[in-house]
């Protein structure tokens, strides 16, 4: 719908071109839920570097954690990417990125299990996780590198009815608190064809974790994982041996769409707060907003946000039609994080000193920018992937 007098990005209706009544209803539910249960505590939880575990159960009570999983495991089988876009937008609105990274870590931990694991594992792991009773994580990245997934070095060798795992994982979301870890290990030769996925559980012998302090996403639990002769039953193999790489790939498209929609939502928050501030604040005898330099910053933010939003919805639509828009998703991820970077930078500038002081969304988002530009496929890797797809 055409923009006119600006109030807030989040007070606009969803475009009827892409969204139906169910998306609207879900948006209203999330709006109320987050305003009551999450938004008032985001600052406190960020400062505390964690959030209460009962948030998982609360999120499950409205169906947030079950979204997209089959009914037989207690899920709600909505495969529609616009639900993911609406969810990312509403979560972004409260500006508490770190919290959602941990709260939703199952959204990268479970899909490989759903795609490849046997029924025993699925039935044991998926129901308690999406009910908010257990936490799932995905552990791919290693201290030696995350972009080059096919060359990971954590080794698992068979010994009787166990694998013996040695190696370590880095920057793992929900790394301290998870109960179930979907871990990529090398069981075969070099490259993608030697990789398997193992379900490693919290109390397995030889498995330890240490927490990591971060630039942003403070409320999120991030850890390094260590495996020292960690014993994992053979029955915890997810799918077939040396065929784990495809399980890693199943995540990418939805994960990237989520990051894209989140990054743009955070850019919107930055602009909303910058507009509100510039309308109130007076310098040199007039509103900050009446200085052309500031107005043009806002116009530039609007331009970038609009373009990113339009392409996000078009790409989600392609996915809804069953297409796999890899070029669009990779380059859009770059565009979204660059939009976020620009809007966060300019919003802090517009807020001035206040933008540098803790306890406001803009300051926090500014610190969170880089993780969106690095995680889930860095900007460099995204451009490279697109270029390869285009067979240039």
């Amino acid at each position, binding site marked *: 719908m055409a923009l*006119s007098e600006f109030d807030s990005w989040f007070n606009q*209706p969803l475009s009827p071109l892409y969204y139906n009544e*169910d998306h609207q209803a*879900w948006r209203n539910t999330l709006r109320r839920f987050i305003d009551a249960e999450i938004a008032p505590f985001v600052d406190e939880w960020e400062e505390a570097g964690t959030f209460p575990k009962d948030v998982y159960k609360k999120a499950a*009570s*409205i169906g947030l954690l*079950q979204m997209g999983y089959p009914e037989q495991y207690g899920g709600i089988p909505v495969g529609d990417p616009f639900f993911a876009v609406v969810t990312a937008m509403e979560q972004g609105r409260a500006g508490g990125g770190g919290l959602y990274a941990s709260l939703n870590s199952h959204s990268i931990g479970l899909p490989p299990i759903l795609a490849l694991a046997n029924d025993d594992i699925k039935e044991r792991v998926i129901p308690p996780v999406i009910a908010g009773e257990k936490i799932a994580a995905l552990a791919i990245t290693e201290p030696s590198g995350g972009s080059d997934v096919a060359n990971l070095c954590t080794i698992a060798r068979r010994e009787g009815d166990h694998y013996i795992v040695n190696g370590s994982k880095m920057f793992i979301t929900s790394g301290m608190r998870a109960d179930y870890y979907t871990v990529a290990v090398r069981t075969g030769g070099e490259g993608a064809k030697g990789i398997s996925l193992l379900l490693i559980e919290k109390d397995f012998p030889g498995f330890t974790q240490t927490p990591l302090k971060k630039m942003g996403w403070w409320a999120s639990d991030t850890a390094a994982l260590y495996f020292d002769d960690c014993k994992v039953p053979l029955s915890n193999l997810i799918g077939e041996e040396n065929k784990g790489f495809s399980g890693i790939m199943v995540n990418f498209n939805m994960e990237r769409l989520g990051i894209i929609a989140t990054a743009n939502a955070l850019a919107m928050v930055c602009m909303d707060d910058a507009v509100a501030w510039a309308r109130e604040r007076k310098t040199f005898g007039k509103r900050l907003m009446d200085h052309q330099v500031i107005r043009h910053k806002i116009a530039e933010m609007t331009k970038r946000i609009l373009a990113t939003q339009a392409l996000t919805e078009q790409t989600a639509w392609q996915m809804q039609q069953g297409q796999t828009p890899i070029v669009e998703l990779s380059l859009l991820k770059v565009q979204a994080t660059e939009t976020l970077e620009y809007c966060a930078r300019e919003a802090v500038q517009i807020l001035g000193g206040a933008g540098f002081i803790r306890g406001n969304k803009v300051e926090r988002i500014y610190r969170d920018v880089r993780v969106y530009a690095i995680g889930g496929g860095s900007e460099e890797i995204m451009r490279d992937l697109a270029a390869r797809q285009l067979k240039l």
Partner: protein
Amino acid sequence: MKILVAVKRVADYNVKVRAKSDQSGPDLTNVKMAINPFCEIAVEEAVRLKEKGVATEVIAVSIGPKVAQEQIRTALALGADRGILIETDVAMEPLAIAKCLKQICDKESPDMVLLGKQAIDGDNNQTGQMLGALTGYAQATFASEITFDGASASVIREVDGGLQTLELKLPAIVTTDLRLNEPRYASLPNIMKAKKKPIDVLTTEELGVDVTPRTKLLKAEPPAERKAGIKVEDVAQLVDKLKNEAKVIV
């Protein structure tokens, strides 16, 4: 027991509503809409009564444009059993709404009609009372507690001086106040299940209701901007200003 709940589509409470540039009314063209919060409380109360086994059927009715189906869907996701949309593009006044609801009451013979005490768009606080007059049902406004005893209901209402308890014979009309309950969230599974629940669509012509507005909107404009305040030196200056500048005391 059958409960009819009225739900209205209004601008979301977060939205700062603006007047159209030609002053012909509020500008709602690019605004997120939602269910009126007081109506949501009414739906919640009806659903709780159903869960307690007091009510057997909950019907959500909305009067408004085709898209008001969204708000009926929300009511269905909260637990109502079926919906009725009275579709109209006329900007309806409370009396016209009450007349439509009266027709639905005649068709459905509910034991109770639950409405919000007001809608946050017009803040009229009239529809429930008008419906009471038109149907002759007993009525209690601003309810903060509803209990049932056979064929009668006991309603505690919030009045200026405190709380007042009324005994009502059924059928009755009750309008809800903020403290009646804390509405649940429409969960994703219930949103999906609500798709299977039926919504009947009627028109004001089918109901034989004359919805012609009785009042004319002359002009909509934003409230005057508040001027910056000043600090007074002492009480004497304050009294002087209140008397001679603001002219609020003599």
